């Protein structure tokens, strides 16, 4: 086994290397190279930081960028707040008879395409939508109001889309929390609040972090939900990228934006891991 070529290793590593090099590593490098090239005064392509300069000079770009980042963090936090009690209820409170049924039921909607889910929200919320119909029917409104196309509905949509990715790690990490720890804390005089803060949350931290990373990343990179549910004057940064690529056909500028988004997502995830003292390799499992 020691001498010669380890065929097992070669067979396993070749497809993986091809995949990661050709589809992940080289495209990212290429994108970076594209982003630092621009036309000079003579119309020739060459090295330039003009694309990045433009980003900082045009308020609409960096404001959209900041807005996207802040809203993504907000969405991540809201998703955690909403799903944590659900995960706790399913793993610790509800009688074991219903546990399996509830956990299947709660994950079911997420198997459906994001587009269908966003579409569902649209026909619920829009001016001629179902909610308006009922509000008028019950006399709570006299004329329909537009509930779509603002930041609140966009956030609702993003939270809705992201919940699965928070629920799954939370369910598994709560499953591993020994009930006797909660009982012991209760027996020692703990209240609901102190047990949550001192026992449950610290135990769930790896799951919370991994859920948050995925939710944050997916929200940041989401195009569909902000585009269909967000307001016309509240752009998402992915829309800026799309515009540069498809509408303006300025691939160098688009690459610079893409690269910035990548840096942002890596930086915030890195910061999150540092703050909670977790490691990516561990969190993923």
């Amino acid at each position, binding site marked *: 086994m020691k001498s010669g070529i380890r065929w097992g290793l070669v067979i396993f590593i070749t497809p993986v290397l091809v995949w*990661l090099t050709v589809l992940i590593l*080289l495209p990212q490098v290429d994108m970076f190279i594209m982003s630092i090239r621009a036309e000079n005064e003579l119309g020739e392509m060459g090295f330039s930081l003009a694309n990045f300069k433009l980003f900082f000079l045009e308020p609409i770009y960096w404001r959209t960028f900041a807005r996207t980042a802040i809203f993504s963090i907000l969405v991540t936090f809201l998703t955690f707040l909403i799903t944590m009690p659900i995960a706790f209820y399913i793993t610790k409170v509800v009688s074991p008879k219903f546990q399996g049924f509830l956990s299947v039921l709660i994950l079911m909607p997420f198997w459906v395409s*994001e587009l269908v889910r966003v579409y569902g929200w649209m026909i619920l919320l829009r001016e001629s*939508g179902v909610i308006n119909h009922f509000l008028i029917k019950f006399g709570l409104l006299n004329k329909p109001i537009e509930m779509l196309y603002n930041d609140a509905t966009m956030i609702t949509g993003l939270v809705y889309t992201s919940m699965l990715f928070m629920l799954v790690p939370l369910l598994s990490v709560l499953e591993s929390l020994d009930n006797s720890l909660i009982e012991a804390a209760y027996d020692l005089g703990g209240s609901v609040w102190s047990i949550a803060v001192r026992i449950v949350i610290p135990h769930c931290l790896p799951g919370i972090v991994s859920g948050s990373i995925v939710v944050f990343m997916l929200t940041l990179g989401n195009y*569909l939900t902000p585009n269909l549910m967000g307001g016309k004057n509240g752009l998402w940064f992915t829309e800026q990228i799309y515009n540069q690529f498809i509408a303006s056909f300025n691939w160098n500028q688009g690459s610079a934006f893409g690269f910035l988004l990548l840096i942002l997502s890596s930086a915030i995830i890195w910061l999150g891991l540092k703050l909670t003292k977790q490691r990516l*390799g561990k969190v993923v499992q």
Partner: protein
Amino acid sequence: MIRNIPQTKAYSQGFRLYIILYFIFLFAPLAVTCVLAFNDSMFPSLPWKGFTLEWFTGHTLERTGIFNDQINLDSIWVSFKVAFFVSLLSTFVGTMGAFLFEQEDFPFKNLLFFLMLAPLVIPGVILGISILLFSNTLGLFFETHFGLDVGLFRPGFWLVVLGQFSFITTIVTLIVSARLKKFDHTLEEAAMNLGATRYETIVHITLKFLRPAILGAMAVSFLMSFENFNTTLFLVGSQATLPINLYLQVRDGSTPVINAISVLMIGGTSLLALANLYFSKQER
């Protein structure tokens, strides 16, 4: 508090109310979408004007049901084909990846592992554009140096497959690795001790053990591919996949045909999800 501690009424009732509200929040958009697919109206909205199946089977000019709507049917077929190739490819490579990271040892293993996880941290949109850029660069390279015009490098079917494959394979690797971690290596050693070769051991022992996880990962990758929007958006050529096609229709206004398609998708994915659940139950 938890189920075997006596709890106050307010606590348990409050909790139950929250759960009910959550479920309403969860299912309302889907339920409404499904119900309105059967409404005898030109728009997917209330009031209810009676039950109809025309948005599925209709073939008048005014109401073309999904079964007669060639553009949408085509996009469904494209999505199927994409999902088929993506699930096959990514299951194959992902399983290799699981074996590689769980069973082999080599220099820079950690580095490669992190590179494997990278698609989890790279937004889908970025994956899409970077692959678009790189394929374009390659296309230019082949054209200028060899005078070849390679169709693969232009947005289109195979680029969509590759784009989705690039991140779905990571998910497959993680799913299969999780199962492989639970594998008792003494079983392999026992098989080899009884005279099996490494190849026979993998086929008869390890892959048998992994089968539920591999099938589950295949189902997951099929679904993820079928529904993918963000990465596909930049790579799609003239053949639109279903989500892209639906997106264009939703953006420009809507007819109950979209609801009808949604009903089919909800039904189909639920079936696949249940099948997946069945397999993962078997795993235990």
